[in-house]
């Protein structure tokens, strides 16, 4: 077991209690802040080498959003860490009853390649804030950020408590043989299953942030131009390699006709007449993904875009019309800059279509009629929901971010990350005295004692009164 030494080293640090004081956690988090500030250029360069994404996008997701999470955490850490006192019943009135937030111990954090810094740092911030030791496993596919993280994190964080492990499938498999106290994984559903199965061997709790095909229903009553802009923004951000991007559109034939020119206009507005020349449009991460996404182009008909350039791993912002459920683009999560439109007769058919499939990370619905938005919300199930926009629900850290069913298990962002990495320990601290109050619970049992216990334990409905 090649990683046994590392894991036991971290576990020993954990048992020493080093990571528990608030001052220690704050110091580590502040060091992460300095990492983001001092190494901003290196981070942006590495992500751009890996993802080919525009610096605006890279700055926004890899630096700004991470700093926001850091600040939310630092601003609130002391209150999050406090014991949470709970309401007491009659029997425990004189006791101290509280929920103690405790770190789990040694956490394994596995990150994917699409937002390589963000998807390490945001969970890492919460894991550190909660007092754990952490092993970070960046994705080997985003090679440049993997090296950067492996090299630099150790310069900022305490090496006794935080480590980075690099490698591919083989190394990850060996790593998963070890016992961790929590595993946080972001990636595909199939690997999510592998991770959870490995975790089961040690009874390790997990959060798995997976994916799926996020449907986007556009009703007939809507402002076509605003819809087009918001959808284009969400779909083509990071060249479509976003877990909560709108994956496909559902609308009527009429709406497809109306949307097409608006989509074309929005794409041109954003990326110019030749998106390959735009500094604001990204690239596919590697050849394997490029070929996979390119193969999805033979679905329906190419209404906008469709051009590709293998040398640059460029796929143009593409809209496919009249896509059928049996087409390749509808068989898997696209994770690329292709937006299929599937025509439905009406909202009910759209809802049925959504419900016939695996529950996605997000359901999107666009309509000027709030009743329509609410119907889609109420009659579907998904990790999250956004009405009349895309991606934004993932950027409000007071909303829990996570999937359901095939799209994942658990949630994070903001306080939810802290809670994810904390064990909520129920504590009751009683009085040694007042033993007579306990008398009714002891054997020998009598009806009289039972009456007393019932009287003190019972929770009565409000409004029932016991007047003699």
């Amino acid at each position, binding site marked *: 077991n090649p990683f046994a030494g590392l894991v036991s080293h971290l576990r020993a640090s954990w048992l020493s209690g080093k990571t528990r004081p608030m001052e220690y956690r704050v110091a580590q988090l502040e060091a992460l802040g300095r990492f983001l500030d001092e190494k901003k250029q290196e981070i942006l360069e590495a992500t751009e080498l890996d993802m080919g994404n*525009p610096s*605006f996008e890279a700055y926004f997701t890899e630096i700004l959003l991470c700093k926001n999470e850091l600040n939310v955490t630092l601003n609130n850490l002391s209150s999050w860490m406090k014991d949470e006192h*709970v309401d007491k019943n009659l*029997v*425990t009135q004189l006791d101290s*009853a509280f*929920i*103690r937030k*405790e770190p789990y111990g040694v956490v394994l954090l596995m990150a994917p390649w699409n937002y390589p810094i963000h998807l390490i740092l945001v969970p890492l911030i919460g894991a550190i804030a909660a007092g754990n030791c952490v092993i970070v496993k960046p994705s080997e596919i985003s090679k440049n950020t993997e090296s950067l993280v492996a090299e630099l994190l150790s310069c900022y964080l305490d090496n006794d408590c935080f480590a980075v492990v690099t490698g591919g499938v083989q190394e990850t498999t060996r790593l998963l043989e070890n016992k961790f106290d929590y595993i946080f994984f972001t990636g595909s559903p199939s690997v999510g*299953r592998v991770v*959870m*199965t490995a975790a*089961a061997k040690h*009874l390790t709790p997990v959060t798995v942030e997976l994916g799926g095909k996020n449907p986007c229903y556009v009703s007939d009553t*809507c402002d076509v131009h605003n*819809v087009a*802009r*918001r959808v284009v*923004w969400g779909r083509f951000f990071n060249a479509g390699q976003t877990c909560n991007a709108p994956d496909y559109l559902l609308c009527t034939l009429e709406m497809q006709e109306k949307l097409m020119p608006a989509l074309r206009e929005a794409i041109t507005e*954003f*990326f110019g007449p030749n998106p390959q020349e*735009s*500094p604001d449009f990204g690239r596919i991460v590697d050849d394997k993904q490029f070929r996979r996404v390119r193969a999805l182009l033979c679905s329906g008909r190419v209404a906008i875009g469709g051009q590709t350039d293998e040398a640059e791993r460029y796929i143009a912002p593409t809209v496919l019309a009249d896509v059928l459920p049996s087409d390749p683009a509808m068989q898997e999560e696209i994770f690329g800059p292709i937006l299929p439109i599937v025509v439905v007769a009406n909202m009910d058919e759209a809802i049925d279509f959504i419900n016939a499939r695996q529950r996605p990370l997000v359901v999107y619905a*666009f309509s*000027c009629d709030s009743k329509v938005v609410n119907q889609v919300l109420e009659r579907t199930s998904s990790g*999250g*929901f956004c*009405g009349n*926009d895309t991606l*934004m*629900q993932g950027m*409000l850290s*007071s*909303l829990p*971010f996570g999937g359901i069913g095939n799209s994942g*298990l658990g*949630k994070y962002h903001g306080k939810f990350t802290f809670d994810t990495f904390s064990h*909520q*320990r*129920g*504590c*009751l601290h*009683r*009085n*040694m005295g007042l033993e007579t109050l*306990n008398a009714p*619970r*002891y*054997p*020998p*049992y009598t*009806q009289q004692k*039972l009456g007393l*216990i*019932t009287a003190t*334990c*019972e*929770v*009565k*409905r409000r409004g029932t009164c016991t007047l003699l």
Partner: protein
Amino acid sequence: MERMQQVVGRARAAFNTGRSRPLEFRIQQLKALERMVQEREKEILAALKADLHKGEPNAYSHEILGVLGELALVKEKLPSWAAPQHVKKNLMTLRDEAYINYEPLGVVLVIGAWNYPFVLVMQPLIGAIAAGNAVVVKPSEVSENTAKMIADLLPQYLDRELYPVVTGGVPETTELLTQRFDHILYTGNSAVGKIVMAAAAKHLTPVTLELGGKSPCYIDKDCDLAVACRRIAWGKYMNCGQTCIAPDYILCDPSIQGQVVENIKATLQEFYGEDVKSSPDYERIINKRHFKRILGLLEGQKIAHGGETDEASCFIAPTILTDVSPESKVMEEEIFGPVLPIVTVKSVEEAIELINSREKPLALYVFSNNKQLIKRVISETSSGGVTGNDVIMHFFLSTLPFGGVGHSGMGAYHGKHSFETFSHRRSCLIKDLKMEGTNKMRYPPGSQKKVDL
């Protein structure tokens, strides 16, 4: 075993009709459960007596009272628990509606245990129904009378398609676990817990595992020993030691070991009289297999009190062992029986070290007049839950989450925590389709100006 597929399939079809979702329906089902408990009390108590030799007042206060309390609490609080929770917004979302919507997960599987066979099925069931799910109930086959009673009674009061009861042993449970559920709550041992989680992993099904372990009980020299020992004896010997949060073993200074034994002996006399076997308040071991297992733990041990057994009736007397070695068999596995080992330690540091060298337990107990010492033990150890200066009691306060950590489990329930365990918290952001001006900032073409903003 197509039966399992059919049962679960029917529950899923019933869930998909949406009828378990309206609050009125959920409350109506909970009220029906309440009627069941009140009307069929005699049958419930009879089943518990047949399975565990549990006396009526004991069975009532341990299994029925808690269920009625939970039902009353849920009926009262459900509307507020189920209401959408609006969240703090940021500058970008100031004009929007942002809230967390509580939604049912779908089809939940509840697997019960045999030691408190009624309440360990009912409490999760109540939470799962309250959250709007369909629920497949699988009571433990080991407590067969209670399993049969639940299988008979539930369909008489609840919607039969939404809340089916499945009976059977290992083969049936294994088959059941191949089906897809949207949450599984399992109460039992760690070994089977791993099997449940591995089966759940195939479907990415979230799990709540209420397992066990050896719950340590540290007695400080500075404490009222008579009171401490009475409380410990109550928690240890109730249900003949077959309680997941029973104090499993005692840690104390050698100088007070003798007094601890004497105090517990005196308490046992108070509780069960001269002849424990004839006390209506003392239960029996569930079956011969466990009887033999517990008997095996006594080998080579110094029996300071008790030790009498009767295989025919699965009777084991309340037993105390002294000067027990941490390496002995009785200190390896969860005892789950009326045998209380005392391991001597010279200091609280030694106690904490011993506790931390073992798997995280479900419960941890510490008795002391010194508040600081209690706080220290809590801070320097980990466990599912804690009661200081008493045992078991944190279980009865439903505002505290009840569950394990590490080997003793994952997830928690009771009260509102059950509702949250069985709900999906769906993030919802509803924007206006107008007001596009504010979005322009984020659209390409990007520029340094925008980045600097």
